[in-house]
C-alpha cells in the first residue's frame, strides 16, 4: 500500500472543494494541498445548479435584509452569527468569482444583473442564464489549474478517515483506475463531498450525491447536525426528477392545479398578481410550496399521471424571447426530457428531494469537533440554512464557507505537527475490508440495487414531506434491517480495474448511515418547523426545539441525538409571513 503525504487534503472537487483548495493555495503557496475527488472536478454536482447565487450588491439592498430573509426562511433555526458573517462575505466571494471569469449576466451598463428568487424580499440573485452552477464550477476548476501547488487525485474514492492522537490524520482512498488502496496523510482534511439526495428515490440530485462525507465524519465520531431537514423542491419533472429551476417562477411562471387555478393563494402565500411579487405566491419558500402541493393533492385537485401526481408550471405568457434569454436551459430540458416546448405548453412538475440542510457539524470556520477535520459546502452544516434553505443561498455558501474552511485548515496545518501514529494499521485494515468485498468474501448473495431501492422506499414512506412517529419508527426499523442485509451483498464484479460496483456498494453503506441519522433526528424533533413537518406535532415549539439536533453514531444500535441551542443575535423568533 502506497502512502502519500500532504499538508492539506481537500475531499471533493465541487464548488466548495475547489474554493477551499484555492484558498489554501492563496493563503500559503508553500503548503502542499491535494484535492481528492471520486469524479473529475468538473463532473461534480455543482454543475447542475441552475438558478443563481445570492449576494447583496445593488444599492436598494442591504446585508440585514439578506440576513432576515435567510433567517425567517430557515424558520429561526439558522445560527444568526453564521448568517451575518455569510451575508457580509458573500459579495466579496461573488466578485472574486467574477474576476475569475464566471460569465454572469449583465445590465446594459456592464454591471452584473440580479434576479428575484423564492423567499427573497429584494432581487439579489446573481445568475449566468440558468446554468449558474455549471459556469461557476467550470470557472473555479479552470482557475484552479493555474495554482501549481494544488495536486489532484481525480477519480479516487475516499473510504475512511484516519484518526489518531485525537485528531484527523488523513484518509484512505480507492484509486478507481487501478483498484489500489492508498493512504493519504495530511495535517488537515477538508470534507467538501456535497449532499446526499440519493437516499431518496425521487431526487434532483446526481448519482454521485450519496452523502459520503457525512458518513465518513459520522463514523469518525463527529456529529451530524439537523439531518431531519430535507428540502423538497416544488418543481421537478416527473419520472426523471430533473429540476426546473425556481428562476422559471421568478421570471414570472405560475403554478396551476388541474383547473388552471393558481392554488397557492389558498395556502396563505398572498394574492395572485399577473407579475411576480417578491416573497409571495410562486416566490414563496420551497417548504411551504411543497407542502401546499401535498394538501392540493389531498383535495383531489392535482393531475394524475403514470409517474405520480403533478401540477402545472406555466411560463407561456413570458413569451419566447424572455424564455430564451433568461431560462433557455429550462426549455432545453423540457424539449429533451418531456418532449414539450414550454413556450407553448404547460410543464408538469411535482415536489422532489433536492437539498440537505443538515450535515457535518462545524463552527464558523468550518472546523468540526475533531481537530484537523474541516467541512464545507452541502456536506457541512454551519448552519445558515436552518430548517429550510432559500434558493440561491447554497452556491454562495459553498464559496464563503469553502474559502473559510480553506483558510482555517491552512492556518491549522501551518502549526500542526506532521501526522504520526496508528495510521498505517488503520489504512491496512481498511484495505483488507474493501478488497475482501471485491473478492466476494462472506457475501450472502444480496444485490446493491435491491437494498438501495428498499432504503429509498423506506425513507420516502417514513420521512417524506409529512412525517409522524409511526412512520418514522417503521423507517428506522427498515433502515436497521437493511444495514444488516447490506453486509450480505455479493458483488458480481471481482476485478480491480474501474470497479464501479464496489463503489456503488461503499456508497450504499454511506447512504444507510445518512438515512439512519435523518430518521432518528426526525424522531427526536417533536415539532413542525420548515421542511420538517410532523402531523402528530403540527406546531412549532420554540421552548423545546429552538435547537439543532446532533446525531452521534453508536457502534451498534441507533444514534444518540443531542440538542444544541441556536445562536440568536438580532432577530428574535417570529412568525413567518409570506404574501401578507
Amino acid at each position, binding site marked *: 500500500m502506497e502512502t502519500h503525504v500532504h499538508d492539506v487534503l481537500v475531499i471533493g472537487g465541487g464548488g466548495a472543494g475547489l474554493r477551499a483548495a484555492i484558498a489554501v493555495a492563496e493563503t500559503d503557496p508553500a503548503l502542499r494541498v491535494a484535492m481528492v475527488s471520486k469524479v473529475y472536478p468538473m463532473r461534480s454536482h455543482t454543475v447542475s445548479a441552475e438558478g443563481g447565487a445570492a449576494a447583496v450588491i445593488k444599492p436598494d439592498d442591504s446585508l440585514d435584509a439578506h440576513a432576515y430573509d435567510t433567517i425567517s426562511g430557515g424558520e429561526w433555526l439558522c445560527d444568526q452569527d453564521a448568517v451575518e458573517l455569510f451575508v457580509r462575505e458573500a459579495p466579496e466571494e461573488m466578485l472574486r468569482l467574477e474576476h475569475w471569469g464566471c460569465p454572469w449576466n449583465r445590465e446594459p451598463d456592464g454591471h452584473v444583473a440580479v434576479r428575484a428568487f423564492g423567499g427573497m424580499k429584494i432581487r439579489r440573485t446573481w445568475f449566468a442564464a440558468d446554468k449558474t452552477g455549471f459556469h461557476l464550477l467550470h470557472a473555479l476548476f479552470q482557475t484552479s489549474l493555474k495554482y501549481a501547488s494544488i495536486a489532484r487525485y481525480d477519480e479516487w474514492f475516499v473510504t475512511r478517515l484516519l484518526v489518531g492522537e485525537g485528531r484527523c490524520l488523513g484518509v484512505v482512498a480507492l484509486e478507481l*483506475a*487501478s483498484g489500489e488502496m492508498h493512504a493519504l496523510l495530511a495535517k488537515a482534511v477538508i470534507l467538501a463531498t456535497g449532499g446526499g439526495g440519493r437516499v431518496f428515490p425521487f431526487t434532483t440530485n446526481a448519482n454521485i450525491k450519496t452523502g459520503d462525507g457525512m458518513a465518513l465524519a459520522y463514523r469518525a465520531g463527529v456529529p451530524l447536525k439537523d439531518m431531519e431537514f430535507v428540502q423538497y423542491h416544488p418543481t421537478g419533472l416527473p419520472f426523471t426528477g430533473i429540476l426546473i429551476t425556481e428562476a422559471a417562477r421568478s421570471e414570472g411562471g405560475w403554478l396551476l392545479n388541474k383547473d388552471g387555478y393558481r392554488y397557492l393563494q389558498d395556502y396563505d402565500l398572498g394574492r395572485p398578481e399577473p407579475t411576480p411579487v417578491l416573497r409571495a405566491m410562486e416566490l414563496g419558500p420551497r417548504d411551504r410550496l411543497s407542502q401546499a402541493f401535498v394538501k392540493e393533492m389531498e383535495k383531489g385537485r392535482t393531475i394524475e399521471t403514470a409517474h405520480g401526481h403533478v401540477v402545472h408550471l406555466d411560463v407561456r405568457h413570458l413569451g419566447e424571447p424572455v424564455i430564451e434569454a433568461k431560462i433557455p436551459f429550462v426549455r432545453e430540458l423540457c424539449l429533451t426530457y418531456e418532449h414539450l416546448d414550454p413556450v407553448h405548453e404547460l410543464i408538469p412538475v411535482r415536489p422532489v428531494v433536492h437539498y440537505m440542510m443538515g450535515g457535518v457539524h462545524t463552527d464558523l470556520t468550518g472546523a468540526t469537533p475533531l481537530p484537523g477535520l474541516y467541512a464545507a459546502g452541502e456536506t457541512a452544516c454551519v448552519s445558515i440554512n436552518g430548517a429550510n434553505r432559500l434558493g440561491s443561498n447554497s452556491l454562495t455558501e459553498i464559496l464563503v464557507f469553502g474559502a473559510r474552511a480553506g483558510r482555517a485548515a491552512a492556518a491549522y496545518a501551518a502549526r500542526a505537527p506532521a501526522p504520526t501514529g496508528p495510521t498505517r494499521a488503520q489504512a491496512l485494515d481498511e484495505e483488507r475490508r474493501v478488497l475482501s468485498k471485491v473478492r466476494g468474501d462472506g457475501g450472502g448473495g444480496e444485490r446493491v440495487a435491491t437494498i438501495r431501492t428498499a432504503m429509498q422506499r423506506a425513507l420516502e414512506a417514513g420521512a417524506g414531506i409529512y412525517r409522524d412517529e409511526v412512520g418514522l419508527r417503521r423507517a428506522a426499523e427498515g433502515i436497521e434491517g437493511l444495514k444488516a442485509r447490506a453486509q450480505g451483498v455479493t458483488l458480481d464484479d471481482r476485478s*480491480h*480495474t*474501474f470497479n464501479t460496483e464496489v463503489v456503488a456498494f461503499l456508497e450504499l453503506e454511506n447512504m444507510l448511515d445518512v438515512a439512519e441519522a435523518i430518521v432518528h433526528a426526525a424522531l427526536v424533533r417533536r415539532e413542525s418547523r420548515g421542511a420538517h413537518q410532523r402531523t402528530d406535532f403540527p406546531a412549532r415549539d420554540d421552548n423545546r426545539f429552538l435547537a439543532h439536533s446532533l446525531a452521534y453514531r453508536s457502534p451498534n444500535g441507533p444514534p444518540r441525538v443531542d440538542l444544541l441551542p441556536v445562536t440568536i443575535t438580532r432577530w428574535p423568533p417570529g412568525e413567518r409571513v409570506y404574501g401578507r
Partner: protein
Amino acid sequence: MNPAYRRHHPKWYRARMPIFWWFRKAAYFRFIARELTSVFVAYSSVLLLVQLRAVAAGPEALARFTAWLHLRPVVALHVVVLLALLFHTVTWLHLAPRAIVIRLGRRRVPDVAVLLGHYGAWLAASGLVVWLLRL
C-alpha cells in the same frame, strides 16, 4: 486471463485506426474528397502557368498548347478537373461562415449572409475575368 495484466496496473486498450476510416461516415468521406480535390486545384494552377508561358513564348507555342487542349482525352480530363474544382470551391465556401463571424451590435450576422457574400464575391470575380477576356 490476460497475461499482460499486472495487478493494480491497468492495461489500457488502444484501438488502431483502420486504413479506410474515411468510409465510416459520409461526413468523413466528404472531407477526404475535399482534401483530395485540392490536388486538382494545384493542377489547374500549374495548367494556368503553363498556358501563360505558352502565351509568352509566342503564337506558335500557344497554338500548339491550344491544340493539345482540344485532344479528346485532355478535354475529358478537364471536365473531371472542372467538376472537382467546383466541388472543392462549393464545399470550401460553405465552410467560410465557420471562420468569419461578423457582429453587428448584439446580433451575429447569420451564416447564410456570410455565405451569400462569398458566392457574390465569386460571381463578381468570375464576371471580372470574363469581362477582361472579352476586351
